[in-house]
């Protein structure tokens, strides 16, 4: 089977602002899925609410566009019910780290084989520019006319500290690099986090394409993603240099290894089989 980019073409009108970083992510996702030869019917893209979460509508693909912040929870169950499918989650930084912060932590613990792609535009885009958990302290935002009083989250450090099996950072305009990283994340067995720096041209005048061009650098071939302490050092470093690439990677047993090992078919394909109770009733006689 050879999957073509056209297989993913959607007729739905795109609602993003012209120039939005999301376009770069959309193209990279298509490129990656084609690279991996994954047909749309074997992929589920699970999202919540926001600008980033509209992404699957601009693809022709199985889509679960659920609630704001709950995308990771729903995706976890989708993977349990249909482990033969590739499950991608696309979320804004608000949905993934704010509303859905608890699910993010537990997805790392579960190490279930889904890929979380966070579109980090440092704001709540859809709801018009409020601060997000990624907004720098002191930034003046809609509900913070005198500056955001809280510190920004460091999701990369958090993920590495929790031994998340795959942690990467990308930039939306570096399409090939992003596509290649996404493919590696999808191939990785277990939970993978791809944190994508995404300029919001409407609400953030600081983190522009020019800003990222100046501050981002790609990790070289000499970088060893297996070194957890080095990775932590990198993401905890002060200053404004932004490393791109796979920051940390480690193989470990997955959720499926223990939780689904007793099944000989996906839950989705199992019939109703009331007779199963016959085996259990004797315990109660």
């Amino acid at each position, binding site marked *: 089977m050879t999957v073509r980019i056209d297989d993913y073409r959607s007729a739905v009108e795109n609602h993003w602002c012209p120039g939005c970083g999301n376009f770069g992510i959309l193209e990279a996702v298509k490129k990656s899925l084609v690279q991996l030869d994954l047909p749309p019917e074997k992929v589920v893209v699970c999202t919540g609410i926001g600008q980033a979460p509209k992404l699957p509508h601009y693809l022709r*693909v199985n889509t679960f566009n*659920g609630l704001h912040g709950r995308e990771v929870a729903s995706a976890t*169950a989708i993977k349990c019910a*249909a482990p033969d499918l590739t499950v991608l989650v696309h979320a804004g930084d608000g949905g993934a780290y704010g509303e859905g912060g608890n699910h993010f*932590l537990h997805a790392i613990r579960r190490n279930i084989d889904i890929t979380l792609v966070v579109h980090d535009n440092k704001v709540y885009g859809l709801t018009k520019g409020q601060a997000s958990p990624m907004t720098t302290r002191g930034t003046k935002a809609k509900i913070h006319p005198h500056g955001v009083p809280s510190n920004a989250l460091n999701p990369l450090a958090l993920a590495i500290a929790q031994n998340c099996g795959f942690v990467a950072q990308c930039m939306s305009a570096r399409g090939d690099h992003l596509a290649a990283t996404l493919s590696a994340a999808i191939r990785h067995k277990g939970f993978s986090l791809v944190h994508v720096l995404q300029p919001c041209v409407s609400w953030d005048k600081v983190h522009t394409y020019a800003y990222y061009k100046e501050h981002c650098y790609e990790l070289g071939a000499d970088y060893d993603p297996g070194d957890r302490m080095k990775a932590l050092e990198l993401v905890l470093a002060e200053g404004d240099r932004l490393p791109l690439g796979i920051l940390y990677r480690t193989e470990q047993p997955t959720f499926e290894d223990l*939780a689904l090992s*007793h*099944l000989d078919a996906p*839950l*989705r394909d199992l019939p109703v089989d009331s007779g199963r109770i016959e085996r259990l009733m004797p315990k109660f006689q």
Partner: protein
Amino acid sequence: MEVQIRIAGAAGQGLQTAADLLGRALTRAGSFAYLYTDAESRIRGGLNFSHLRCSDQPLHGISQQIDILVALTDAAVTEFSHLVSTNGIILCNRENTHPRTAPFTLASLLAEIGGDKALALLSAAIVCALLDIPRGLMESLVRDHFGSGAALESNLRALELGYRKAGELDHATRFRIAHAPAKAPRLWLAGHESVAFGAIAGGVRFVASYPMSPSTGTLTDLAEWAREASLVVEQAEDEIAAINMVAGASYAGARAMTTTSGGGFCLMTEGVSLMGMIEVGGVILIAQRPGPATGLPTRTAQGDLHLALHAGHGAFAKAIFAPKNLQECYELTARAFEVAERFGCPVFVLTDQLLQDSQATMDAFSTKEISQKRGLLSEAQLADMSSYHRYELTDSGVSPQAAPGISKHVVVVDSDEHDVDGHLTEKPIIAEQMCQKRLRKIASLKSSLDFEPIVEGQKSSPHLVISWGSTYETLREARNHLKKKNALFAHLHLSQVWPLPVERLKALFARYDRIILVENNAVPELGSLLCECTQRAHDVFINRFDGRPFSVEEMVSRLTEVLP
């Protein structure tokens, strides 16, 4: 012939083990047992009791009479000795001056065999002997329960001693029950297990929950049986995750369920409206306990009907079943799965602490009535379709559902308003069409679940007693007691509380002068819903809201007060 036994003492003394063994022994012997447990929300200490009724017929009401009181603490004697019948006996752990105490203490017997680990079994053995349960039967249960080693040895010694000591009591003849061995083996199980059996018979494949009393029993059962029944049980990080997992699993084609109580369910409501919007099925068990907030964690109530009914904003189909007893815990849970998948909507099963935690002798469950048909399009059907629209506009409002990954079609669902293909839209015409489709689904669900309300008791009485959920068995017994005193009433019990057959109910209510509403709750839940739907308010409200169930005795006296 009925004998009632109450084993009372502190948490951690093994009351439940003793009562459970007794119930199982009675079941095997061919009699009917019913066990109700009153326990505090603590692991050690306090005053708990397990109340066991045994009889030659199923009696599942709550009773306040005691024939045999096993008092493992002094507090248990003080608290319950006044309930002991004139022929009754009290087996005390320690020396007590109460006139009806046995001529030995459990502590002294334990000393004879050395060690106090066998207190539960010793009590059970004496009671078993008084109930004329063959010792061999009890011994095989003890062997099953304690395996091998020192624990088995000391419990076998306790068993022997218990039977011997019981033989010396002159009560020994008084409690003899004529056990009649059943044709087919019966089951001894709890309500939470009935619900779990119902879920498995109903084809559950995925369960996600955050533990909360009194629902946790069902979650534990399902987890324990996951391998034998081919399902996946996940302890979610919170209730919000749980319900969003249910929606996800259901979208992906697995029958899914979550188990919770009112407080946990409060966190789930957005997920319920998600299910309504994206039109996926799922079963939500709410095992009710008193609120607000944490309330009384290990106690019972019927307060969550409106919470479930109005959960989630917007208009969409849902059904609410409220089992009246342990048998219906099985039947209605199984049914809930079928309805949820067929209509692609949330279906609630409302039990409560009383139903979840009580145990009873039951006939083996039958699967004859349970549809074995999946409600989703098959691979073959999908292969024949040139296109697929997840939200196709149909007369019934129910669109054919496909699971992703089994055909060339992609399946798109969206919590935003969407078009027939599941893509978000704000177009007014489509928004209206989709809303109308969901409204048509509400109507088709209602007609599919339509039923003729069944009136029991004295149908021609001018008094109609209305109840729902776990009060049924107590009311049924109270009805029989009152019949003997010629205090008659008609009794309508609803096990499906939504949707309601409104016109039929209106016609029915018109035949009665007075409506007496019974609820285990501070404010009328079913009562206000019926009033809203039929414009007929109840005239009398009999309720209880201290977290305890009604007893038969109380029900008889409360009904006597209001019946002429």
